[in-house]
């Protein structure tokens, strides 16, 4: 029960942050150079459409009234109409969100499994030749522009070797009965492979370095020494006590990585023409489709903030010192 209070206060705090981000977004799109109506109204809309939008978003009223209308609309999930698609922004975003989430989570899961294992291994081989060789490479992967890595993989595996398709989520002409059958098809997975690999290579550095340094610290702890004195098996000592304790902060970092990854997706989705939120944001900004850009930005921000919260909560639940206080 005692864990409930910090959870609630943290949640409340993040709702405030969300409100602040929403407000910044409002100001960003309202105070940009040019016609303030441009945030919602494209000149090519019919007069009736324009008037309906002016009414819905209170665009003829004061900035303050507009702000409250905007908040009210947001609470109802109302994000306006996309200029290019002539459809509600919310509809478009819900369509793209799964693609982004699939890409993000699959790449991070791969990155974390690899990073955790490799990090533990490097901790075990500390001060070895393997470490001297691996560490600069890991640091270098963190220094890579993700889109460049994507370009290199694309050039090699798609254009030179022809193993994987060059972009999109499915081959031309393929149809699927449901989203589920699409997402589980071999075609979809082969499209997913390269962008997923790109993001995974970029992201493995954080869990790897974290796991390594945590392992090095944990293996110096008294309870690890005691496990040796107890004559427990090396597996029990290294995995059950060493890795289990070192894993705690790494797991927390997963949620934070999701937030970072969503931002990095913007460029990688563009390289692989992956129809996700990031690519949509870029193309919407380029095409001055402001409502869509605003909606995509907001959705990304919501996931980032949500993941920050989950990171905190994970920590609370994974560490018995806090959850069983």
């Amino acid at each position, binding site marked *: 029960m005692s864990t409930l209070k910090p959870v609630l206060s943290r949640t409340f705090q993040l709702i405030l*942050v969300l409100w602040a981000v929403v407000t910044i977004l409002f100001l960003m799109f309202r105070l940009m150079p040019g016609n303030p109506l441009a945030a919602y109204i494209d000149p090519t809309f019919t007069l009736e459409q324009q008037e309906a939008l002016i009414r819905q978003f209170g665009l003829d009223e004061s900035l303050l009234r507009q702000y409250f209308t905007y908040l009210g609309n947001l609470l109802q999930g109302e994000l306006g109409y996309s200029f290019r698609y002539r459809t509600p922004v919310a509809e478009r975003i819900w369509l793209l969100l799964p693609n982004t989430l699939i890409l993000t989570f699959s790449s991070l899961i791969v990155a974390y499994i690899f990073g955790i294992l490799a990090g533990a291994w490097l901790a075990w081989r500390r001060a070895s030749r393997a470490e001297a060789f691996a560490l600069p490479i890991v640091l270098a992967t963190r220094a890579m522009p993700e889109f460049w890595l994507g370009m290199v993989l694309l050039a090699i595996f798609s254009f030179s070797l022809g193993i994987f398709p060059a972009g999109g989520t499915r081959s031309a002409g393929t149809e699927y009965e449901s989203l589920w059958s699409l997402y589980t098809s071999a075609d979809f997975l082969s499209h997913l492979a390269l962008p997923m690999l790109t993001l995974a290579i970029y992201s493995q550095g954080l869990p790897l370095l974290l796991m390594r340094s945590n392992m090095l610290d944990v293996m110096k702890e008294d309870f690890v020494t005691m496990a040796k004195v107890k004559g427990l098996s090396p597996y029990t000592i290294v995995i059950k006590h060493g890795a289990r304790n070192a894993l705690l902060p790494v797991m927390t970092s997963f949620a934070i990585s999701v937030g970072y990854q969503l931002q990095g997706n913007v460029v990688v989705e563009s390289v692989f023409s992956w129809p996700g939120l990031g690519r949509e944001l870029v193309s919407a900004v380029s095409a001055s489709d402001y409502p869509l850009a605003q909606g995509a930005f907001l959705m990304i921000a919501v996931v980032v903030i949500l993941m920050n919260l989950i990171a905190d909560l994970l920590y609370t639940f994974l560490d018995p010192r806090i959850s069983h206080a």
Partner: protein
Amino acid sequence: MLETTVPEGPVIRIFRAMKLPVGDNFAMAGLIIYVIFALTAIFAPVLAPYEPTEILYTVDYDLASDLLPGQEGHILGTTSLGRDIFSQIVFGARAALLVGLTAAFMVAFIGTIVGLISGYYGGWVDTILMRLADVAFGIPFLPFVIVISAFLEPSIWNTVIAMALVLWRDTARVIRSQVLTLRSRGYVEAARVSGSSDFKIILRHIAPNIVPLSLLYGSIAIGWAILTEASISFLGFGDPNSISWGFMLQDAFASQALSRQAYHWFIPPGLAIIFVVSAGFFISRGYENLLFPKLGR
């Protein structure tokens, strides 16, 4: 243990006084890369055989497009518009240096000031500033920079300002907690009781202890800034008047360099970015070992 036997020149001594991480192999490698990088940027016009945007022709008056490395004396070949890739790489160092240093300076400067004020004065000032930092943590960094760069005039400055508006948060939090621990130390307490002005205490007792941390976060920000600028340029929201490595990659990508397997075009800019950004990481690693020896290894 070794460096004590090496006679220390004045440069090393100055570095030491600034608490620069001499002696750490990683950091030294990083510093050397930075020096090469800075020299390249400064002497770009001397080093580059051509103007980076100049459209070149072969001796037969054909467009010198898509030349491979070594052909017609182009070290790294040419782009499909007939521009010299090596010269673009050399000039790209200028854009990277400009973005990296200005962004790092702004991030370290804003972050340090906010952290100092927040930690030193505490109370409602602290609450407000730290809530602001929370908000900055809630803003998706790259999308924010994209939107700002697109709405304002696309320029290096706008990109740098957009970055600084978000990235100050990390530095501010770290500096703040450092100031909090410093503030509780005896000598700061003593200075307060003896009636020294806040300004004097901050300048004399607190600032010297947090400058290394500011430098650490500044050196991390250099890498972030260069990577971000590359992404922004790659997406087409960069400064159209400057040749940056990100711009080169966008040019290559848009000109089908991938399907034509023009590796000589898009590999070098990426490597250049990796070198410079990892140099920043190496230096910050060395710094961390120096500042927090316990974390090292």
